[in-house]
């Protein structure tokens, strides 16, 4: 039987790298998609608005696990074989996009409508109004919940272990299966999650304080 030593710990650290990479990729792609859906959700064109609302509703109403199964196993039935990392990033990105779209839509809507009116009255185009007036304010409002969501995402990446992708949680499981030193193994895994999430949580808390302090009305 193996004992829990440096090689095992290094294995877990490397897997933590994958967790970070997976988080980063799905967050970046999810952000781009989510931003687009947030704006579409507020479009003046009803069809666009409804499409975005439908997408968000569907994705938010099914567990991310099902999205993962569909992209990994479902697509393989029709002949599309996605590598686990790709299926995992794509599924998480889809999940991220639906939640960020809602967070950001809310942030955009919480900018008082008088700001839109003032901007329009100064002869700005709708695009200029977004770019110079609404989005800078919406981004500030959305920062704390967005970072908060990122913390959730770091932890939720563990779900991709079910399609055989070895990230931090899965690595812990594998090492435990070989060493049966569950306490040491999972303590290390927990400490690593904490080391990633704690600074982010603090950042979110800090941003919230800063935003509250500078809120005007």
């Amino acid at each position, binding site marked *: 039987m193996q004992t829990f030593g440096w090689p095992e710990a290094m294995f877990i650290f490397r897997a933590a790298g994958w967790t970070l990479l997976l988080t980063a990729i799905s967050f970046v792609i999810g952000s781009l998609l989510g931003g687009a859906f947030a704006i579409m959700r507020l479009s003046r064109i009803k069809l666009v608005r409804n499409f975005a609302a439908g997408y968000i509703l569907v994705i938010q109403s099914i567990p991310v696990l099902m999205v993962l199964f569909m992209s990994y196993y479902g697509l393989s039935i029709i002949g599309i074989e996605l590598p686990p990392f790709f299926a995992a990033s794509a599924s998480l990105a889809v999940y991220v996009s639906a939640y960020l779209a809602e967070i950001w839509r809310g942030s955009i809507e919480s900018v008082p409508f008088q700001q839109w009116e*003032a*901007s329009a009255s*100064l002869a700005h185009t709708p695009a200029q109004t977004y770019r*110079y*007036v609404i989005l800078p*304010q919406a981004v500030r409002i959305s920062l704390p919940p967005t970072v908060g969501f990122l913390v959730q995402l770091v932890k939720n990446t563990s779900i991709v272990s079910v399609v055989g992708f070895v990230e931090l949680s899965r690595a812990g499981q594998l090492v435990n299966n070989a060493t049966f030193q569950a306490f040491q193994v999972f303590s290390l895994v927990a400490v690593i999650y904490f080391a990633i999430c704690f600074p982010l949580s603090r950042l979110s808390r800090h941003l919230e304080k800063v935003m509250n302090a500078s809120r005007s009305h």
Partner: protein
Amino acid sequence: MPAVLIDDVHKSFGKLEVLKGVSLNVETGQVVALIGRSGSGKSTLLRCINGLEAINSGRIEVAGHAVEQDQKKLRELRKDVGIVFQSYNLFPHLTVGQNIMLSPRITQNVPQAQAEKLARDVLAQVGLSEKFDSYPDNLSGGQQQRVAIARSLAMQPKVMLFDEVTSALDPELTGEVLLVMEKLAKDGMTMLLVTHEMNFARNVASTTVFMHQGKIWESGPSQEVFGNPQTPELRNFVSAGTK
């Protein structure tokens, strides 16, 4: 041609008819005060003039632009027609200087250096030169409103609309805003203002228009409208307002 031409304008919100056939001309350089009770339609009329509200029928022309719901034409109109709101509506994430420079820069492609000079000029005009780098949150209500006026002036408008611009202010801050507006009026700006400041209307506006139930009930030279109201409605309104 008058600076503002309003011809038989009707406007409804759902079933509620707010403007029931309003006609009014404002000549270049004229200062017109719109007075009346809440709900008389005066603010709605003002908002129709720069297209913030669409009218149901009738015709409005301002500074040579017909008001229609074509967004591009509306933008052309809004370059010539400034509006100042009750709640100032400065952009809180920008400094005073940036608030003022933004629109000339992005809508008229004014170069940075020139925009800055323009901003400093209009800020001086409202007596707030030293606030160029301040954020709106650090200004009093009266100062914010003066910045809002300066922001509109930087677009070099031909007509200025004021929508109850002192209603959100403490009495001691009202004066400084009215002073700025009085100076503008003296400099020959064409102004249309919705106001509850009866003394200001009487002394600064050349014409006062009393609106009641969505119509122009009475209008004329301000001294006459206040000094010798013809209708009982205006008489009541004036006596209630000056008590």
